[in-house]
């Protein structure tokens, strides 16, 4: 029990600087996606692609900066709580997202971990975002279960935003290379 409390308080595994980095990346992701949503009306294809691409690219950079198991899960928890506090977005999909992301992170750990194989960051982001979308589609089904036809719209939008994630992954790889060249990340 004491060791669980110690872990939840970040003792031993996460440094304070890791938690600060996760917090700042959450802030940046939320702020930029919110601004893009406000500027582009939220659901138009260009905004959808851009929002997801920005999100994925930032996640890639975060994993390059803090290559530890649990970073993605913590990022998702903080992001969901923030969306709830600031914008009232329900966090009903969060438990599923946590389980999915944690499973992805454990798989990455089993394959050798991000410290040894930074390239696994691509797999981690791609798979965890897929999980998030699946969880949100499940939740959306509950919301439109009387008129399941509307779910098509949710699925199409999720698929399109996932396309943005794939574009963001490519952008993230380029960005990490450049940030290393600039000496901003090791």
């Amino acid at each position, binding site marked *: 029990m004491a060791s669980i409390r110690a872990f939840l308080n970040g*003792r031993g595994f996460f440094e304070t600087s890791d938690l600060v980095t996760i917090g700042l990346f959450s802030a940046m992701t939320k702020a930029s996606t919110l601004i893009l949503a406000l500027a582009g009306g939220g*659901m138009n294809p260009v905004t959808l692609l851009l929002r997801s691409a920005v999100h994925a690219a930032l996640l890639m950079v975060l994993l390059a900066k803090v290559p530890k198991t649990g970073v993605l899960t913590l990022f998702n928890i903080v992001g969901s709580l923030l969306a709830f506090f600031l914008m009232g977005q329900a966090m009903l999909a969060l438990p599923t997202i946590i389980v999915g992301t944690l499973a992805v992170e454990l798989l990455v750990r089993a394959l050798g971990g991000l410290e040894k194989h930074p390239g696994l960051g691509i797999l981690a982001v791609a798979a965890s975002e897929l999980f998030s979308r699946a969880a949100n589609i499940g939740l959306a089904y509950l919301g439109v279960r009387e008129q399941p036809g509307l779910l098509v719209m949710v699925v199409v939008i999720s698929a399109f935003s996932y396309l943005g994630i794939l574009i963001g992954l490519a952008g993230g790889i380029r960005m990490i290379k450049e940030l290393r060249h600039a000496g901003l990340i090791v």
Partner: protein
Amino acid sequence: MPALSFKFSESTTGFLKITPESRLILTLVASIFSLFFGQIVPLAILLLVTAVYISLEIRFRYIAIVYLFFAFIALTAVTFVWLLGFVFTVMKDQPLSMAVIPFMRLSISINTIIPLAFNSKLSELISTLNKLRLPGLIKLPLIITIRFIPTFINDLKQLRQAVRIRFRGVSGYGFWVLRPFLWSRVFFMPLVVRLIRSTDELALATELKGLSAETDFGAQRLIFGPTDKIVLALASIAVSVSFIIENLHAHG
């Protein structure tokens, strides 16, 4: 969303003086139960109660603007799917009109989200977080996040101005069309650089301060005033009545 430095202070009426914690509870309860209910009557009760709540909290003009904004988002989504229907024929036969029940669920959420979002203040949110006694592992990054969102929005404003001057030859609405890669680069790279620098500076500051996930931020007790108690009691009654009607319908 004053927490994000937008000027929404004049949108609120200031009539219901309830705590942010009460607003959070109302939002969470409304979103869970609206999802749970499948009958028109219980949803209508929730819709009515939340409509009264938003009317007491937000000026009518702003409620109208918010609803128009959501309608616009819904319309762009529907148009987008409709356009895709030309490419993927399987989608042509899907109903695109809004069904009544999903619309009611969405409206209930909007009615509770907007008072929460328009009344949120940074300092109050940080204090609310302390009261919630979350684990340090989550609380520390969350406080950092809330603290830095205005900084990033400010960075973005400054960046927009710098870009307008530097790229005045192509700036304006044509920039992202004429040079999409350059446009995304000039907006995104400086922000990422600022993000990484802020991360390093702030990590250094927290280390120097001795702040860690173990720090006791001075958690305070949750205190509800008389107005909070009345509002939460009324909300409980509305949810209970709706719950009973939902179950009567289900078993009848």
